[in-house]
């Protein structure tokens, strides 16, 4: 149906009807995308070239001034590094811990279903709620972590007030909240690996470790790939936990690119620079996606 081109559509009545049907089906979706996605995208691009504070009636065009200001700000590069640390650690830990937990609860254990439910429950909780609860856990004077550390004779660092500990704290909360999702996806992957492969490996004399490396891991690679892409994109856009837990602080220790975008737009009211940040994020995510689709997917063994 989609192969009908407008030029030939004028010919036969049937083709025209198909063309109209196509338009009727695609139209509503396209309109929604145009209004809520493409138009804001273009408008954002425009905003990145003007100087505007959301209030003044004039929006003077300043060409690349906003871009220059954003990229020459030393804070920007600290924030970019923060984002890299946050993303790499969060995604890496989520994938690794998720795999370990998935392998564990894939065993025929008692209360397996209860364990799965417990692991998955943080995923469906609101990020703001999770962050509020953790802010109490992290409190250096009466928090749960302080008490746990007290048992082993250590005193709690000021998790959210100390620039050295704030980022690890945010990563910890992020991984805790999202690891359940990885576990569920991994579990589905594990159950999709044909039993015959394991049987065959056993016949060939492969031990548990060999079976893991040569059957389980390759079998999981499409799932791991899917998880790495979705986690990376989600992590890049993760805002709620940082906002509630630290407000990007102390100073800018936990400010990520997305938080910086919010900060520029809705705290500083600098629509131009916020527009630049949005374009930067768009570019980074587009590049990451293309790289992952082009290079990583080739190596994935679809079972």
């Amino acid at each position, binding site marked *: 149906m989609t192969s009908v081109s407008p030029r030939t559509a004028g010919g036969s009545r049937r083709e025209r009807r198909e063309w109209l049907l196509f338009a009727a089906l695609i139209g509503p979706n396209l309109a929604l995308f145009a209004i809520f996605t493409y138009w804001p995208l273009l408008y954002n691009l425009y*905003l990145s070239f003007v100087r505007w504070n959301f209030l003044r009636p*004039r929006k003077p065009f300043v060409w690349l001034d906003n871009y220059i200001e954003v990229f020459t700000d030393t804070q920007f590069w600290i924030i970019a590094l923060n984002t890299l640390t946050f993303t790499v650690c969060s995604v890496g830990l989520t994938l690794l811990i998720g795999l370990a937990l998935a392998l564990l609860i894939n065993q025929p254990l008692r209360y397996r279903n209860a364990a799965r439910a417990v692991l998955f429950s943080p995923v469906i909780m609101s990020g703001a709620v999770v962050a509020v609860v953790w802010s109490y856990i992290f409190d250096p004077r009466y928090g749960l972590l302080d008490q746990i550390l007290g048992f082993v004779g250590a005193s709690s660092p000021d998790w959210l*007030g100390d620039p050295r500990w704030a980022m690890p704290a945010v990563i910890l909360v992020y991984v805790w909240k999202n690891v359940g999702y990885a576990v569920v996806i991994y579990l589905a992957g594990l159950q999709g690996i044909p039993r015959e492969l394991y049987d065959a490996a056993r016949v060939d004399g492969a031990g548990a470790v060999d079976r893991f490396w040569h059957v389980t891991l390759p079998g999981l690679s499409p799932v791991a790939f899917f998880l790495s892409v979705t986690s990376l994109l989600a992590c890049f856009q993760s805002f709620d936990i940082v906002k509630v837990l630290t407000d990007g602080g102390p100073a800018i220790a936990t400010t990520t690119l997305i938080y910086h975008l919010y900060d520029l737009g809705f705290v500083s009211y600098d629509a131009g620079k916020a527009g630049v940040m949005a374009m930067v994020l768009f570019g980074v995510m587009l590049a990451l*996606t293309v790289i992952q689709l082009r290079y990583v997917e080739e190596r994935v063994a679809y079972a």
Partner: protein
Amino acid sequence: MENTTKLTRRQMLRGMIASGGVAILAACGAAPAAPAAPAATDAPAAAAPTSAPAVAAAPSATTITYWGSFSGGLGEAEAAMVKAFNESQSEVQVEYQFQGSYEETAQKFTAALQANTIPDVVLLSDVWWFSFYTAGAIAPLDDLASQVKLDFSDYEPVLLDEGVRQGKHYWVPFARSTPLFYYNKQIWQEAGLPDRSPDTWAEMADWATKLVKKDGDTISQAAFAHPNGASYIAWLFQGVVWQFNGQYSNPDFTMTMTDPNTLRAAQFYQDTVNKDKWAILSQDVNKDFTGGITASTMASTGGLAGIQKAAAFPVGVGFLPKADSFGCPTGGSGLAIPTSTPDDKKLAAMKYIAFATSTESAGVWARSTGYMPVRLSTKETPEMVTFFDENPNFKTVVDQLPLTRAQDAARVFVRNGDQIIGKGLERIIVNGESPDAVFADVNAELTKGAAPILEDLKAIEAGACAGLRRSGLRRRRRWRCR
């Protein structure tokens, strides 16, 4: 199974990536896109009941919306105020809508102006009203005031004058406050200190050694606590800067963050936390003070009633300590009426403002919160006199007022100036960065932020209508040139 999942997985993946990639832009672009949205209709509420003068029967009340920032105990006091007004007469009904913090209220008001769905009265903080003034978004109130027979001469001049531009009143003081030194009398007594606030910061540093308790390297009980940037450290630091004979800026918007005295004050702040280690940077000073985590702090007078209620110990208050001299800024928030509110609602809004800041109401509000009585005559009312006798802490609040002054332009007139300075102070205190370097950055950022304000001011105040026309303001109906 395996064959079909292979395809759907890829498709799903692509779909999710595509939607993920654009979601972020949709999120960011949506708000700025709003200006395109308002339709040709001018009045936001077409159904507004214009109280028809011809019909004498059935007085139809004008309902107006009031956006404010008070929650908790302050919110209850605010709701009581609105209720008292609604019950005192039948012409105007006020609907109070809580909008979040001062920052969030300003944020929503900004968005509301774009979408043209504005409130009729809005509470704006010391750092926000000016931005809306330069944007022409809030109305001069003098004509309205004379219509409701409101006499501005009875207001505390130091508070009232801040909201005056070119002889016109734009911002009526309502929940106005100053910083106050709070101390925990119990800890003070245990440390063997006299029952008063320290006269100078040197004295405080001396006392601090007796107040601070350490558990290894971490402070378990601090002598003093600073708020963070989001909780307006730049407001409290304003007073300290003056105490060191520095300032944020000159009245002509020249920034003076790198002035040696300003830097000295910053160095002092850094030392309290990093070198001498008797102060902490707190996420919530009120909570840490009432929880006994810090023995003293500086906080708004507006929190006095709440702090006294929450604290399990006797609360002492005093004037701010001195360094080279005394310095204390005013702060808090006031009421304004949007320019584009229809005239009948403007009048109704003004009636509410007159009520909320009347001699009696100002007294009720001050007694239940700790904010300043904004009327001169309030202090003489019998209720207030007895109240001061019974609550000497509240007397201190009022006694300090004549010693205060309006803040430097850098914090209150430069849009986001408060947060720029606050973030800088966080870098100095938390990261231990050198005040020279950080305040040089802050100075540059403030200078850049001041440029458009000066431009707008010139357009609005110097050339008046001509300036407005030149800057293109008249193209939008709501900035009608009067």
